[in-house]
């Protein structure tokens, strides 16, 4: 029995160990979708999948690109060496058919709001352009003309059948069966697309444009495109509605917390969990962050599908006000329900929670709002109030001096570390000047990322601030601003933290008793910094819309609470880039010390 229990426990322990080891990696992967980077320039642009089948389509299309690229290279090589008669005609015909369908799928993806479609179309057009260009030249050779004439004879034979099919397409359109009409039209297209590749302009006009493309395909598209567009916009609208509804869920989950705490001293939180004011505060903070992520997604989906009048900014303000109101209510309830014995412990823990959440807000918005409630708490607990006053007198000046000295040190360091945002849209010194990290995709993603990384890899830059995704994840994020965000690995600063602890007379049993001191300690413990300076180790090109439509809840820190990823100079489009710069840190600026990474 003992033996079997042991044998059962071992695999469980191994699995647990493996999962715990991989957890940081899994979390990293969650934020970092596969996208082209300096290290993997040919990687596909990620799909956001608001329309679920888009992900599979994007993946499938990217997987086909290498074969077409290879064929294109082969054609260029043969053409350059004057061996056009050796063009692989059958492969070219097969490719023309595949490229025709792929192009149709990419047009479909555009309606699904996938920015990857822009990159896919650029890559496809490159291959398609070459196949048509060389195919037309090949069709003029003796060998090529013989190859082409076999098809033309077949076209003439098939003409009555095609006429019937064309009628069917028209009937299907009239009946409102646009998808079926499209399927049939595309099938017709695949049977004759080789003439587009190999035919002369005259042949193309006869057998493609006038007999198929204009009367069938274009007709179908004229009805299919608005049909699909409407359908996908409705699906997107549904997704936006779902995301916005999370505010209602937030309000429902949090509306009774303060009352419960006031009357009973504790409250139920999520299913099967309950807690006092500190747990409630943390719970609200977590729910707020999740709802914030949902609003960012709603904003991005609205932008992607050009959905008007969603008022996501208003919803964001509503959430911000609601969350703050609940949090202040929790502090007020704690003031009334906390006993004298635990007054200091609860107060200190609330300070730590406020400070942690405040770093996720813009401009100490939360901390400022909480001060009157904290003062009220102290009014209710006069013994604690005296201790807090003494603590403040003993720590405020040393914090001020530390902060100002650190600011001066950082100012000195920053002289050789320009901000990372200065790279975006900046130009090279070359003639003509090139844009280093463009805001919009003008070439293929691969070419853009290669050109950018060539200019900026190993450059030293800085970014402010650095926040952790979760305490368990090693990733530190420099929030989104001006078309970019930063990924780095914050390091622990044991010596500096110990010195700060000493200045603030903080130990395991004696917590920080002011908001400033709590902010100092929690940020030092969770490795959250005001600034990071380092060298660029990798550059990832992400589509702006995809980044935020598919933002995982855990990564809500990418935008300060209460804000949305609004671009300062334009509305985001499917071509808008969101650069992810991976920084190998050399130093971090904490509010009260500098961490030299090499010295750690």
């Amino acid at each position, binding site marked *: 029995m003992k033996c079997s229990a042991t044998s059962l426990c071992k695999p469980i322990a191994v699995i647990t160990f493996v999962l715990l080891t991989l957890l940081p990696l899994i979390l990293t992967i969650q934020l970092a979708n596969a996208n082209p980077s300096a290290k993997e320039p040919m990687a596909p642009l990620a799909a956001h999948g608001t329309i679920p089948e888009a992900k599979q389509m994007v993946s499938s299309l990217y997987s086909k690109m290498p074969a077409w690229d290879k064929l294109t290279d082969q054609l260029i090589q043969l053409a350059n060496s004057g061996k056009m008669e050796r063009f692989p005609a059958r492969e070219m015909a097969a490719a023309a058919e595949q490229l025709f369908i792929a192009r149709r799928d990419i047009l479909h993806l555009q309606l699904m709001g996938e920015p990857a479609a822009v990159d896919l179309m650029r890559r496809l057009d490159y291959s398609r352009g070459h196949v048509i260009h060389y195919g037309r030249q090949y069709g003029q050779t003796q060998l090529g003309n013989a190859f082409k004439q076999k098809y033309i004879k077949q076209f003439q034979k098939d003409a009555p059948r095609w006429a019937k099919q064309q009628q069917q397409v028209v009937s299907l359109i009239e009946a409102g069966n646009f998808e079926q009409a499209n399927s049939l039209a595309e099938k017709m297209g695949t049977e004759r697309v080789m003439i587009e590749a190999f035919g002369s302009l005259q042949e193309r006009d006869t057998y493609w444009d006038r007999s198929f493309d204009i009367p069938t395909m274009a007709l179908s598209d004229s009805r299919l495109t608005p049909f699909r567009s409407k359908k996908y916009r409705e699906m997107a609208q549904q997704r936006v509605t779902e995301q916005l509804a999370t505010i209602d869920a937030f309000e429902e989950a949090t509306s009774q917390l303060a009352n419960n705490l006031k009357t009973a001293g504790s409250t139920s939180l999520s299913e099967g969990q309950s807690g006092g004011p500190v747990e409630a505060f943390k719970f609200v903070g977590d729910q707020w962050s999740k709802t914030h992520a949902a609003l960012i997604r709603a904003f991005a989906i609205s932008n992607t599908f050009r959905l008007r009048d969603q008022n996501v900014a208003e919803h964001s303000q509503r959430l911000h006000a609601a969350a703050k109101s609940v949090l202040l209510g929790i502090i007020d309830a704690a003031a009334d329900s906390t006993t004298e014995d635990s007054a200091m412990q609860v107060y200190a823990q609330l300070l730590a929670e406020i400070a942690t959440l405040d770093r996720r807000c813009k401009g100490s918005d939360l901390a400022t709002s909480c001060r009157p409630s904290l003062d009220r708490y102290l009014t209710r607990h006069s013994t604690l109030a005296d201790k807090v006053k003494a*603590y403040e007198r003993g720590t405020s000046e040393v914090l001020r001096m530390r902060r100002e000295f650190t600011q*001066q040190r950082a100012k000195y360091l920053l002289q050789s570390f320009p901000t990372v945002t200065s790279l975006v849209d900046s130009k090279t010194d070359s003639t003509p000047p090139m844009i280093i990290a463009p805001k919009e995709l003008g070439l293929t993603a691969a070419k853009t990322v290669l050109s950018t990384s060539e200019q900026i890899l190993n450059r030293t830059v800085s970014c402010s601030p650095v926040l952790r995704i979760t305490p368990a994840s090693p990733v530190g994020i420099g929030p989104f601003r001006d078309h970019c965000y930063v990924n780095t690995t914050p390091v622990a600063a044991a010596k500096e933290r110990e010195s700060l602890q000493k200045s603030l007379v903080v130990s395991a049993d004696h917590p920080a008793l002011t908001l400033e001191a709590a902010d100092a300690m929690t940020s030092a413990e969770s490795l959250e910094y005001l600034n990071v300076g380092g060298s660029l180790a990798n550059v990832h090109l992400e589509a702006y819309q995809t980044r935020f439509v598919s933002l995982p809840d855990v990564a809500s820190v990418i935008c300060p609470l209460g804000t949305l990823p609004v671009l300062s100079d334009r509305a985001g489009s499917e071509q808008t880039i969101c650069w992810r710069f991976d920084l190998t840190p050399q130093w971090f600026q904490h509010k009260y010390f500098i961490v030299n990474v090499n010295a750690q």
Partner: protein
Amino acid sequence: MKNIICCRWLSLPIGSLVLLCICVGCSKEKLDELASNVKKKSAELASSTEAIAEKAKAASQSAVQTVKENLPSSGSMALQITPPLETSSAEIEIISVDDGRLNVVQILSYNPQNSPSYPRVLLHGTTTELSADTLVGKSLSMDLFIQTTASGPMIASTLEAPVVIQFSRFNTDKNTLEGTLNNATLVQPDNQPVSLSGGTITALVTKGKN
């Protein structure tokens, strides 16, 4: 100022005497005699005024001396850096939160409540002692921060080597604690070292109000 006021008072009787003579219609001889008397009187009065002024000055100096002796010391610091830094104020406070944690020892050359004046020096450390007088004979590692001007580069002790202050004497009459600073290497924001070749502190012991 005092001399000007004295002269004005003296001019009043002399002026009145001359005016009286004009009014009653005196002879030239009489007038000459009177003028001579007036000159004599003026010289006497001037001499008397100087004596009064001397006496007043002496009295004033004595009063200042007395007040100075009765004023509590505001403390001072002298730090041997380049250039040497002196402050005309220094206060030490032991701050106890009274929850079992160590107490804070804070020496300030300035009042944080007042509008900033420079130089500003802060020494900050912790102790188990509850009052300043019991620090005598003890040495304490403290963080040192110096702001010489509002916007100039600060100077601070390093994490590795806080400054050590040796407390030597508590003056009960003046309520001051005296101490000396050991040599230390301080640092500027650009990491340039600054040598501290010792220093002395006479700090007024204060007890802040909670």
